[in-house]
């Protein structure tokens, strides 16, 4: 049985947990500022690029991508967490279908990441980026689909993880490479050819590239490198594949 009431309460629970754990809220706001101060100001001293975009502005889309990436993966780790602490069983024995649980987890992960993305866009002036209403609407849409794609990827991974120890491995071998190969810290064009393959299967690359399309209209080596249409298509296709894989894997394993 597919139940909207159940989806509502699964999402509500994740939000309650998020806002109750003050530290997660503080990290959401502090992390981008720390990156801005440490990475942004440090690198902009040694990196001197021609064009109208400064390095400080350049890393904003990257930090939005990073925040969504970390938040989405982390929110699906709650599935492993729930399994470890038994709460998952409470959901598994309820008269709701597995797809209800998957939908609830996808929606809550997406919404939480989107929320953090919006907070970042509100902090954009600190990066020297000023966002118009239209840009905000575009960013909202893009951040939503990127959040969904990574949440679905996370849920797919989480359906395999039997314990929280596996989470460290995922952080080191999946999440960090996805971040570094995403064009967040340096343009994709600067990467050697053999690493390019990875950037093409990385939804974060397309996401950050799309963010750059929306946020930067200037010229120079730090602007978007791919076509905007390709970015959006790639993210949507990746989301669809991941949602199907995650649902299938979750239903089969539980």
């Amino acid at each position: 049985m597919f139940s909207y009431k159940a989806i509502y309460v699964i999402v509500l629970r994740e939000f309650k947990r998020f806002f109750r754990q003050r530290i997660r809220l503080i990290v959401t706001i502090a992390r981008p500022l720390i990156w801005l101060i440490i990475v942004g100001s440090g690198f902009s001293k040694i990196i001197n690029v021609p064009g109208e975009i400064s390095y400080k502005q350049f890393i904003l889309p990257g930090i939005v991508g990073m925040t969504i990436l970390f938040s989405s993966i982390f929110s699906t780790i709650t599935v492993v967490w729930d399994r470890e602490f038994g709460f998952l069983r409470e959901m598994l024995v309820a008269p709701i279908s597995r797809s209800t649980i998957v939908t609830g987890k996808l929606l809550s992960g997406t919404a939480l990441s989107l929320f953090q993305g919006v907070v970042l866009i509100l902090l954009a002036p600190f990066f020297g980026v000023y966002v118009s209403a239209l840009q905000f609407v575009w960013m909202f849409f893009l951040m939503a689909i990127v959040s969904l794609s990574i949440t679905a990827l996370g849920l797919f991974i989480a359906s395999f993880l039997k314990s929280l120890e596996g989470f460290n491995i995922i952080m080191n071998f999946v999440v960090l490479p996805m971040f570094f190969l995403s064009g967040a810290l340096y343009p994709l064009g600067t990467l050697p050819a053999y690493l390019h393959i990875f950037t093409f299967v990385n939804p974060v690359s397309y996401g950050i590239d799309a963010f750059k399309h929306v946020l930067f209209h200037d010229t120079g080596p730090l602007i978007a490198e791919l076509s905007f249409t390709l970015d959006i298509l790639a993210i949507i296709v990746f989301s669809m594949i991941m949602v199907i894989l995650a649902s299938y894997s979750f239903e089969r394993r539980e």
Partner: protein
Amino acid sequence: MSIIRIVDLMKRYDSIEAVRGVSFEVKEGESFGFIGPNGAGKTTTINILCTLLRPTSGRAFVNGYDCMQEASNVRASIGLVFQETTLDNELTAYENLKFHGYLYNMDKRKVEQRIDEMLELVMLHDRKDDIVKTFSGGMKRRLEIARGLLHKPKVLFLDEPTLGLDPQTRSNVWNFIESLKRKDGITIFMTTHYMDEAERCDRIAIIDHGKIIACGCPEELKSEIKGDSIHLETEDDERAVLELREKFNIDARRLSNGLIFNVDKGDAFIPRIFGRLSTNILSVNLKKPSLDDVFLHLTGREIRDYNDGNGGMADAMRRRRR
């Protein structure tokens, strides 16, 4: 009417047969104890009944619904309290119950009202808005029982409900379960490996190595054991053993401290030995048969023999599934 019916249930994991052809029925409104050592197949059976696991063969029905074909109806008919707690520690008692009510598709107003009732019942009403993390083990268990009952199930499954609780809390939980049964006429299906707790059930089934070895009410099962056991300490145990054989035709066993033998109606037998043994009796101890003795009688082993061991089959299975 049978609210639970299991017919020739089998479950095989790779090469291990966890449940090997189990059949029994539970009547509506009774408390049914499912007893056996760790690894005997209790948890596997309960997981099949609550639709978390598909059997290899055989059938299971709860409240008239097929556990394989009508899982959703079965789930709506049952409440569960697991061995390990399945509460969200970060939420309040109220929020945990509300979550449950919505998962079971209850109306908003009905949920609120039922939560109040249930919290009242388990005496946690004053802790309604406290985070569950701050609760003691007994309080958590009570909250879980309240949650299991929130959607008014027909059957409440309790998997080792008193495991890991101190004796006082254990007895509280038990009193509470019994009052529930009296008041609401709810059917209770529980597993335990504490034999003294099993005595409090209306009927029990004993499972060992994946097979039911006995089923009936505790008194019935105990009456199958011939007689009571009498433990005697005398000044001269060797002579006492000899005289018991000659005068009463009883085979007594020597223990390190005294001797032990079984007779029918032990309480009536004790006065008779006083006059007829030529050695002085130092102490007499009469023991009525317990379910422990039933288990010992049926399997030749004590149930705690393997409870002290490291886990057993079902635990190994659980670990693998996680």
